């Protein structure tokens, strides 16, 4: 009996150590300070490897505890199986020198069976969930999930609410009955109520949402509710014929019912630029950081569509974030061809193209 008590006490203490505020990995952040990288649309090597070179330098300079991946982790159509070698070429190889967890979200290309990325093959995303068990870094325990940091802490500095946006936004209907009709609607309802409950229960100082599809964007895909409104060709012109959810109207409502005004920052990708957009009334206090240029880039379509703290197109890049008490700092880094930092300091080291802080 005494031995059992001793073992139980040891286990509890071991668990408490896991919840310590000391964070040692990946660049030496500690004392309740959390730093991480925001990558999106990263699944196209070798450009992802170019971006990774600058991520390595920034993490060495400023510290990184983890990275988040905002979907489209594997172009053009996700993985064929959990053993698909594409996990090596699209993820393990580019990030081989980064030794910290990557918390991943699913994007439309991860759930597709054609280069168009229509998102109508949701079962393919399950291979990326399963890959979690095979990788020391890739972390996607389920299609949507929450993740606190420090891991195991009952009152984490930050909690991530990772959404599965593709089934709510796809522009090709999923012909698999498991992802269609009442089954799909039940899945979305589960995700909605799971996220509402998790957000209400969270004791984290900082709450962030992560999903592939944005609420607002000045890029080609645009704002939820009017996705592809200005795109050529506008695949949503076929809405109704191929999908009723193409414009993202359902997704807009879903976000307003779940994460809007509840999280401090909504990180996403989908468009291939870098944006830090100001909070918009319908989504409350939430900031919108779109980091979709980790392996692809494109020009800004309408820089006046949403007010921005910062926006840049036609470049690869990523965001680095630091949380220090109630202060959030975000920095955008641009990356040129071959993995060269576009912006450098006197010593030739990468410096941010933009950096801003806010407090809560």
């Amino acid at each position, binding site marked *: 009996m005494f031995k059992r008590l001793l073992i139980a006490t040891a286990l509890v203490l071991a668990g408490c150590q896991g919840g310590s505020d000391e964070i040692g990995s990946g660049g030496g952040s500690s004392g309740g300070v959390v730093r991480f990288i925001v990558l999106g649309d990263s699944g196209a090597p070798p450009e992802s490897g170019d971006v990774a070179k600058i991520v390595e330098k920034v993490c060495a300079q400023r510290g990184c505890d983890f990275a988040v991946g905002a979907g489209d982790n594997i172009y053009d159509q996700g993985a064929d199986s959990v053993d698909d070698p594409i996990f090596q070429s699209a993820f393990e190889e580019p990030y081989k020198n980064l030794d910290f967890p990557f918390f991943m979200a699913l994007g439309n290309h991860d759930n597709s069976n054609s280069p168009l990325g229509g998102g109508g093959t949701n079962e393919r995303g399950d291979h990326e969930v399963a890959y979690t068990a095979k990788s020391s870094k890739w972390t996607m325990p389920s299609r*949507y999930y929450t993740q606190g940091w420090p891991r195991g802490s009952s009152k984490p500095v930050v909690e991530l609410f990772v959404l599965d946006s593709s089934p709510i936004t796809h522009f090709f209907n999923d012909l698999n009955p498991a992802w269609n009709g*009442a*089954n799909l*609607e*039940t899945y979305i*309802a589960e995700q909605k*109520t*799971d996220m509402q409950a*998790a957000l209400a229960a969270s004791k984290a100082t900082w709450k962030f949402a992560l999903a592939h599809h944005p609420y607002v964007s000045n890029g080609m895909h645009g704002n939820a509710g009017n996705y592809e409104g200005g795109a050529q060709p506008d695949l949503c012109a076929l809405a109704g014929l191929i999908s009723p959810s193409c414009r993202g109207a359902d997704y807009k409502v*879903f976000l307003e019912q779940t994460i809007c005004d509840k999280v401090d920052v909504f990180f996403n990708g989908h468009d291939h630029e870098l944006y830090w957009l100001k909070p918009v009334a319908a989504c409350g206090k939430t900031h919108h950081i779109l980091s979709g240029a980790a392996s692809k880039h494109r020009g800004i379509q309408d820089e006046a569509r949403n007010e921005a703290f910062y926006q840049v197109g036609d470049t690869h890049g990523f965001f680095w974030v630091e949380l220090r008490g109630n202060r959030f700092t975000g920095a955008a880094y641009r990356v040129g061809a071959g993995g060269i930092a576009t912006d450098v300091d006197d010593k030739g080291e990468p410096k941010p193209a933009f950096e801003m802080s806010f407090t809560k």
Partner: protein
Amino acid sequence: MRLLLAALLLGLAACQRQPPPRAVDVPAAGLQLRVPAGWQADSSPGSLFFALPTEQGQLIGRSFFLVASDPMRPQPSGRPASLDSYVRYKEEQGRAQARAYRVVHSERLALDGVEAELREIELSGQMEPRRSLAALLVRGHEGLLLVGSAPVDDFPRLRRDFEAVIRSLRWQAPAH
């Protein structure tokens, strides 16, 4: 005897605190349901009806009740699909999507004269195990699903309400 009386009084007091269920129309499905008065009507993409259960005014997290439909292909004979085929179809879907899927209980019942399958199912959700009480029925070329879903730990408190809502179904128009 005194204990029995006290229990009876307490029971009556509890009953008085429970307002009667309210009727809600679900025009897209051509039916009416009676739901507990405290439940919050809400919306969710694609659902014909969506509500959040409450307990003493508080939402019961991760729980919901919804009505949704599946278009059904007619059989080669031109007749509508049967309830048996719809039940099989939904079970195949559920098993394909969930990592674990178990039918805890099933029975046939009539919902305002239309045969339905009532199923209690346990499945691995994305974030935690869930249990659901679902009624499946076929009207014309449409499969209809009424389902109450909750985390496994909360489900026993909600099961009676879920079943009462399902059994309250009244058609607003004759079955086509």
